[in-house]
């Protein structure tokens, strides 16, 4: 219905403005209807300005900035209409360490209302998990579960600096 759309959009929009600021530590972002007169069909535009930077096309944002902006958007929906569980597959791939930590923090906060399942290769993200599930292919081509404790996982992917040259 039209009212539900307007109401949901308003909530998502407000969430997005706040969550972006939270994830970026400042700056400004917004989503809005291209054609507010035509609520039923109007496309949706998105703008984002990280702190200290000028407003420019979101295509010019970096890989990590785009990922953090998209994370803010996904969680804005989630905050407006929470689902019982949420699955996130390697969402942290383009993020640096600091942003990986912020991603983990926002998942932790939202995990008070819903279950989260995160697939990741990053030790720092794993540390936010209450439980770790390992998957392995001891027998080629066949997946099997393997119990993992954080210390083991951390060690398993620990960066041993490989001597250069």
């Amino acid at each position, binding site marked *: 219905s039209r009212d539900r759309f307007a109401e949901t959009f308003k909530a998502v929009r407000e969430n997005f403005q706040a969550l972006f600021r939270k994830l970026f530590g400042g700056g400004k972002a917004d989503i809005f209807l291209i054609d507010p007169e035509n609520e039923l069909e109007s496309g949706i535009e998105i703008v984002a300005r990280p702190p200290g930077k000028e407003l420019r096309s979101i295509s010019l944002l970096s890989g990590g900035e785009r990922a953090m902006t998209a994370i803010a958007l*996904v969680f804005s929906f989630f905050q407006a209409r929470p*689902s019982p569980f949420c699955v996130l*597959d390697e969402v942290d791939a383009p993020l640096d360490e600091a942003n990986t930590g912020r991603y983990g923090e926002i998942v932790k906060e939202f995990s008070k209302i819903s279950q989260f399942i995160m697939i990741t290769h990053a030790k720092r993200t794993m540390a936010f998990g209450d439980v770790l599930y390992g998957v392995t292919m001891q027998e080629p081509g066949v997946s099997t579960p393997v119990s993992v404790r954080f210390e083991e996982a951390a060690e398993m992917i620990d960066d041993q600096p490989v001597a250069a040259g």
Partner: protein
Amino acid sequence: MKLTRAILSGFKSFADRTEFDFDAGISCIVGPNGCGKSNIVDAIKWVLGEQSAKSLRGGEMRDVIFNGSTRRKPAGMAQVTLVFDNTDGVLQPAPNGEADTSDTVAVTRRLYRSGQSEYLINKTPCRLRDIKEMFLDTGIGAGAYSLIEQGRVSQLLNASQDERRAFFDEAA
């Protein structure tokens, strides 16, 4: 409504019956490249009603059935079950129109190599639409924002204004 368990059998690289118990607030799935982590995501999408093989990274739906390794023969069927704790009554299962009031709701989807499909709610055979209708308005289900596949995060920003609107309509 809480997801408590996922059971994969013959689904993609999960040749053997494999059970995952979920109860924690945050679960992390880890493992090397190609070990099967994203296949678990596909399994969840599939049992919730995903009908697009492409959305499951395959060419046809039969691609989700374990099709062998150098040491094993292909499986004859793929099966996925999701078990939910429904004490809060958010889910209102009604397989074939008959209300089921249990505190636990198990949803099962099977695909045989012959192409035949089976669907069950709490062991009662039903239609796929019964499963999809049960999850309607819960925020879960194929296409929702509650399931972010590998590589999809950037697409959210690349989308055109109308695609973004379509995503919104689906989610809202």
